[in-house]
């Protein structure tokens, strides 16, 4: 059974945590003790109904303030598919936690409150989802119960969103009118909205096709760890362990090692289950080569006729995530890209994106907390990379502040504008 990883995003109070509670509840994935617990807490607080958001808001501070601060992961399965849910916070100051939850997602659900429509955080999160290359998007117009299940409200919000989203890079967008609280169109079809002919949310999640989302063409294997057993029976074993970042590896394939440019042939592939003939994106394997080459962590295997780009001067979209200090031009940060560590500095902010209207603001020389901009990055050694849109693994990196150790930025590598 295949697993779908999805994130719920959108502004504070638009109903993300309630929706997850509803999905778990209606798919019978809530355990009795969990339900008793949230019933007791709701009752003690004097709520009129059981607050399903308590299922994911697990931290003391979250319960005290009634908000989501950090991503919560929940798991559930139906006979068709199993799911990992990342329930993301909506507040702007916790955007970095939202990015954490959405970066690996196959699908994002953007919640919109039917009464308020598209607001700034809807736009910010949709932009981030598009920059992060999340392949599938579902816009849930929520709280339809509070607008008398009116199709005109749904259609207006849909148009509003489409007007904004036409300038984003979104491949697959679906709109659903729901009530997370009452359950309309979440797991069962709503009798209150006969005008809506689309699927329920769960039906959509169970049936969405994701197998074509991986890049299975451009072979990329960042070397993570060299396995050299110091045991008498396997003295000659020398394997390169890592996770396939793109394309396929097959026994017998010719490969090239970067940065050395040396070539060899794959003589064996060991998986956690033993030897295999081939490996696909996402698989953790150990590759054996015909020749005894000098290969270390941070090197990359590819096909001789299909290489990643190699450069020390890169262009990237950068999300600045440090609340302690803004991005400083020419300051040295540690760059972590695939399994490679380098040091680097941003020499130029080409533009900053204004979230509300997607305007590009130039003449900028810093990025503040939660700002997004296109930058030029120089690294101390070359990176082997692809455009983020081609490959989410070889196209992404983080910046680490060398004195605080904090992860201060997430970057997505792009082809330079010609």
């Amino acid at each position: 059974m295949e697993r779908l990883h999805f994130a719920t995003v959108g502004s504070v109070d638009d109903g993300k945590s309630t929706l997850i509670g509803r999905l778990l509840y209606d798919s019978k994935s809530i355990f009795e003790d969990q339900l008793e617990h949230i019933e007791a807490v709701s009752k003690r607080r004097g709520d009129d109904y059981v607050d399903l958001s308590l299922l994911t808001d697990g931290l003391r501070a979250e319960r005290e303030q009634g908000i989501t601060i950090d991503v919560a992961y929940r798991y559930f399965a139906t006979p068709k598919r199993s799911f990992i849910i990342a329930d993301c916070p909506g507040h702007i100051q916790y955007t970095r936690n939202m990015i954490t939850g959405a970066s690996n997602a196959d699908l994002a659900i953007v919640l919109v409150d039917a009464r308020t429509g598209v607001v700034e955080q809807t736009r910010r999160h949709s932009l981030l989802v598009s920059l992060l290359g999340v392949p599938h998007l579902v816009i849930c117009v929520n709280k339809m119960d509070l607008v008398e299940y009116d199709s005109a409200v749904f259609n207006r919000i849909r148009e509003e969103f489409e007007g904004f989203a036409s300038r984003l890079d979104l491949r697959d967008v679906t709109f659903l009118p729901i009530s997370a609280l009452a359950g309309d169109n979440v797991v069962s079809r709503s009798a209150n909205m006969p005008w809506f002919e689309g699927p329920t949310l769960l039906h959509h999640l169970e049936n969405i096709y994701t197998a074509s989302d991986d890049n299975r063409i451009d072979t990329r294997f960042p070397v993570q760890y060299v396995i050299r057993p110091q045991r008498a029976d396997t003295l000659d074993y020398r394997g390169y362990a890592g996770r396939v970042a793109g394309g396929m590896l097959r026994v017998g394939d010719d490969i090239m090692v970067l940065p050395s440019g040396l070539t060899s042939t794959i003589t064996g592939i060991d998986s956690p289950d033993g030897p295999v003939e081939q490996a696909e994106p996402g698989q953790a394997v150990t590759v054996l080569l015909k020749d005894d080459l000098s290969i270390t962590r941070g090197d990359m295997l590819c096909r001789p006729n299909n290489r990643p780009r190699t450069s020390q001067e890169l262009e990237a979209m950068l999300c600045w995530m440090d609340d302690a200090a803004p991005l400083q031009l020419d300051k040295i940060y540690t760059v972590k890209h695939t399994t490679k560590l380098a040091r680097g500095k941003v020499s130029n902010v080409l533009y900053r994106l204004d979230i509300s209207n997607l305007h590009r603001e130039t003449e900028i020389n810093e990025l503040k907390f939660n700002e997004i901009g296109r930058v030029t990055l120089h690294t101390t050694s070359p990176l082997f990379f692809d455009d983020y849109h081609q490959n989410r693994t070889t196209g992404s990196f983080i910046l680490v502040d060398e004195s605080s150790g904090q992860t201060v930025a997430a970057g997505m590598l792009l082809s330079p504008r010609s």
Partner: protein
Amino acid sequence: MKSALRSLIDESVTIIREVAAEFERPAMLFSGGKDSVVMLHLAARAFSPARVPFPVMHIDTGHNFAEVIEFRDRAARDLDVQLIVGSVQASIDAGRMQDATGPRASRNPLQTVTLLDSIKEHKFDAVFGGARRDEERARAKERVYSHRDAFGQWDPKTQRPELWGIYNGRHKAGEHFRIFPISNWTELDIWQFVADYNIDLPSIYYAHRRQVFRRDNMWMAVSPFLQPEPGETVTEELVRFRTVGDATCTAAIESSATTIQQVIAETAAARITERGATRADDRISEAGMEDRKRTGYF
């Protein structure tokens, strides 16, 4: 098509290798409980045919089930890893803390002191734990690479962003990371792995007859460390354990499941969570786990 278990294994193996590559002195917590057994098997597969390049460590409260301790020693030998035991009794004898006393005393919270002392003594900078996010609501919030300050504390408010599969293990001297490679596994995934890979577990995970008594709606096992109070009657029941920890705070469940497949069927139909059914220590308060984690617990 990739199965769900397949991608979980790939993710866990990748995390374990990443830590081995980036940290100076990693260690893996190993109690003989099913999650840590699965984690250790994943480590063995991550480095095969080489040995696991770090030791395993057990924090022993001295109040563990004998079958589990025996299993622990045998498994470490079979998988050819070095076993370090941090002893709560030794910490008490050394005056690091006082033993828990009173009728419902449990050494469970005392483990934190011994754990942090052992991490310091061996200068470990990364400690793998077998916690799963589906276990508990504070764990559902924790990163795979979870930073601990010089006092071993977790601060849920300042967790680092953790994007894609890129992990940041940068830390200052004296700080360390807890690493959770099986974060995304559920109880059912663990059992599926045990079945598919024919993994040996301590016998107490399968149904057996045992002397038990009822306390707080749970079946507690009679042991040298836990005796019934007046009014609690001992009976013999057919039970098994869903989780295995300190004998004073781990309860058994009624079960007739003697094979892996029967356990899987039972787990799939369970209406109560693993910890909810069996852990007295989680019932302390609404944020019991979060509070313990903040001060350095597993």
